[in-house]
């Protein structure tokens, strides 16, 4: 491969899409295949310019389906690979997300969410794809989805997404939204030696003994790549540890599918990340994520000024759902407020986990996220 040019460091003023692209480069992503779609196009445009500077590959494929297929191919050839899209493209990618999950291909898929459904509002924010992130592809599987609230997080969480996808051999989703993608903020980029990089486990046996889908204790199999002499087979069909199709065995199906789910669920404590603000004595807890969490933060501060004990539980990991953290906050609280820019998606998970604690859902659709005053009003009413 080519000599590495050193990545961008220091404080910069940039928009979220560009920060995401720079995060990918900083963590070692050297393959991007994509298709233009508002509001994620800037990621593709920026990488088309930056990737070759690092000896990386940018290719514009004919559609989103091909983009993700090419990403999986590059991942199997040993490169860290990603694609970026929005709602309509995300729907197209679902089948290949299933393929990536089934063949345990590490890759990152960025969905800069916009108003849906269908073509919707391309230039307006939304949070309508968050359930699709978990359930979008057919079949049962586990997946990781992160959601940034700031341009700095667009950088940081892209790095995190790559690390998680390599560690767990799973496609990892970065669920941004149009505002976080297009707004400009200060980003502080650490020097390369300060950025934590995780690489996929490589096999430590000879090719004759290698079983491509035999997991280690962490439920993740080591991954050989094409051209290393392992002569392995990988398929989207249900397969055994050799990778060979076994379409008639219920035992093989059960073992494989449960492992794909457990791989994420049983490692959830290592994966899940949340931010807790003033939660220790909170009587009203706001559970929010993405751009809405910014308004929620302002709202709980205003609430505290008015003497209401409000706190914020900001979800950074959407999937696996931070059940324990939400349950813990719900137990201590008298009410939970969930503002979302959709008709009720993550709130269902919160309700499931919160059990007895009443949950108030605040829905908003369109160009503006909730204002702090709107959330404050909901906090006041639910107290």
């Amino acid at each position, binding site marked *: 491969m080519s000599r590495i040019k050193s990545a961008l460091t220091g404080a910069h003023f940039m928009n979220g899409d560009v920060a995401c692209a720079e995060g990918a480069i900083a963590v070692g992503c050297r393959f991007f295949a994509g298709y233009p779609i508002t509001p994620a196009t800037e990621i593709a445009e920026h990488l088309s310019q930056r990737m070759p500077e690092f000896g990386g590959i940018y290719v514009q494929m004919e559609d989103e389906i091909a983009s993700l297929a090419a990403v999986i191919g590059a991942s*199997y050839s040993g490169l860290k690979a990603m694609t970026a899209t929005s709602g309509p493209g995300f729907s197209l990618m679902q089948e290949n997300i299933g393929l990536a999950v089934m063949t345990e291909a590490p890759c990152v898929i960025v969905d800069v969410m916009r108003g849906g459904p269908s073509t919707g509002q391309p230039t307006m924010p939304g949070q309508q794809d968050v359930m699709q992130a978990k359930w979008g592809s057919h079949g049962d599987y586990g997946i990781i989805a992160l959601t940034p609230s700031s341009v700095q997080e667009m950088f940081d969480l892209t790095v995190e997404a790559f690390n998680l996808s390599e560690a767990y051999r799973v496609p990892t989703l970065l669920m941004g939204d149009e505002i976080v993608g297009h707004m400009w903020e200060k980003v502080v980029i650490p020097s390369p030696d300060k950025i934590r990089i995780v690489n996929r486990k490589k096999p430590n046996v000879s090719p004759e003994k290698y079983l491509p889908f035999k997991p280690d204790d962490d439920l993740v199999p080591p991954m050989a790549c*094409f051209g290393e002499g392992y002569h392995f087979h990988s398929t989207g069909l249900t397969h055994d540890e050799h990778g060979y199709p076994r379409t008639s065995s219920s035992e093989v199906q059960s073992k494989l599918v449960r492992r794909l789910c457990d791989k994420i669920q049983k490692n959830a404590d290592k994966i899940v990340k949340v931010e807790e603000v003033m939660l220790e004595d909170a009587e009203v807890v706001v559970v929010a994520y993405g751009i809405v969490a910014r308004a929620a933060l302002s709202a709980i501060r205003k609430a505290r000024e008015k003497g209401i004990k409000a706190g914020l539980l900001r979800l950074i990991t959407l999937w696996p759902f931070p059940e324990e953290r939400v349950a813990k906050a719900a137990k201590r609280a008298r009410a939970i407020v969930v503002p979302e820019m959709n008709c009720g998606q993550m709130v269902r998970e919160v309700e499931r986990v919160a059990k007895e604690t009443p949950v108030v859902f605040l829905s908003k659709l369109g160009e503006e996220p909730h204002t702090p005053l709107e959330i404050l009003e909901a906090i006041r009413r639910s107290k």
Partner: protein
Amino acid sequence: MVQETVPVVVHPFSKYLRAEMMPHIWCQGCGNGVLLNCFVHALDELQTDLDKLVVVSGIGCIGRTAGYMNADSFHTTHGRALAFATGVKLANPELEIVVISGDGDLFAIGGNHFIHAARRNIGIKVLCANNLNYGMTGGQQGPTTPLESVTTTSPYGNIEHPFNLVHLAAASGSTYVARWTSLHVRRLTQSIKKMLQKEGFCFVEMLSPCPEIYGRYNKMRSGLEMMSWFKKASVVENFSDPSKADITPERIVVGEFVDIEKLSYEKMLHEKISKINEKAIEGVS
């Protein structure tokens, strides 16, 4: 007395196949076995480095080929073999990528990916087993089913004009295009050899008998009857106009149709990347 051990009869091509996956699932007389045989024969004549070979296949009977080859292999979702292979080739241009797939996988659901891969001229070699229907799912009509053929979804006779695959491949920009039938085993092997040594996007179509399904529905009840159609109707017309290369009950035009030189996508891309990378490093240091 010297005890002579009876030697176990091992086919000379066994080393190219995954013994634990054989015998293959294909029917009696299926052309897929012939295609696999010719492909392996070509690899053997070229003494191809199996460590650098990647076989990618789509969904279909022919899609099982990836599981039978003793090389790095991947069985993708329906129609996406070429897009996946594009990612592999660009990430590691040293690898020899061969896509082995069927007429439905490559030209119906995969049609868009085919024309763009050919247009880009990415150095992927495509072997298409054209059995004139969707065999794996039971024999439905496909994009290459001849007019008036009976299939399970065209019980009154197919009224869709079929694709002329060599014309499509040539028009999309392939550097090498050939069509043979499963009877023309020698020429098919030679075409595969040529393809493996050529730069750019190459396409070889093999007209394949599907006697259990397509043949049975269309009055050719055995592999031998389908092969006798190939024998009776084939005419070799090398470098004739691909748009006139028909497949009809009376006439099957076979041969090599395109053999040109064109700079491949991965070569252009990596040259450009090297230049930009060098410039960027000089700019920094």
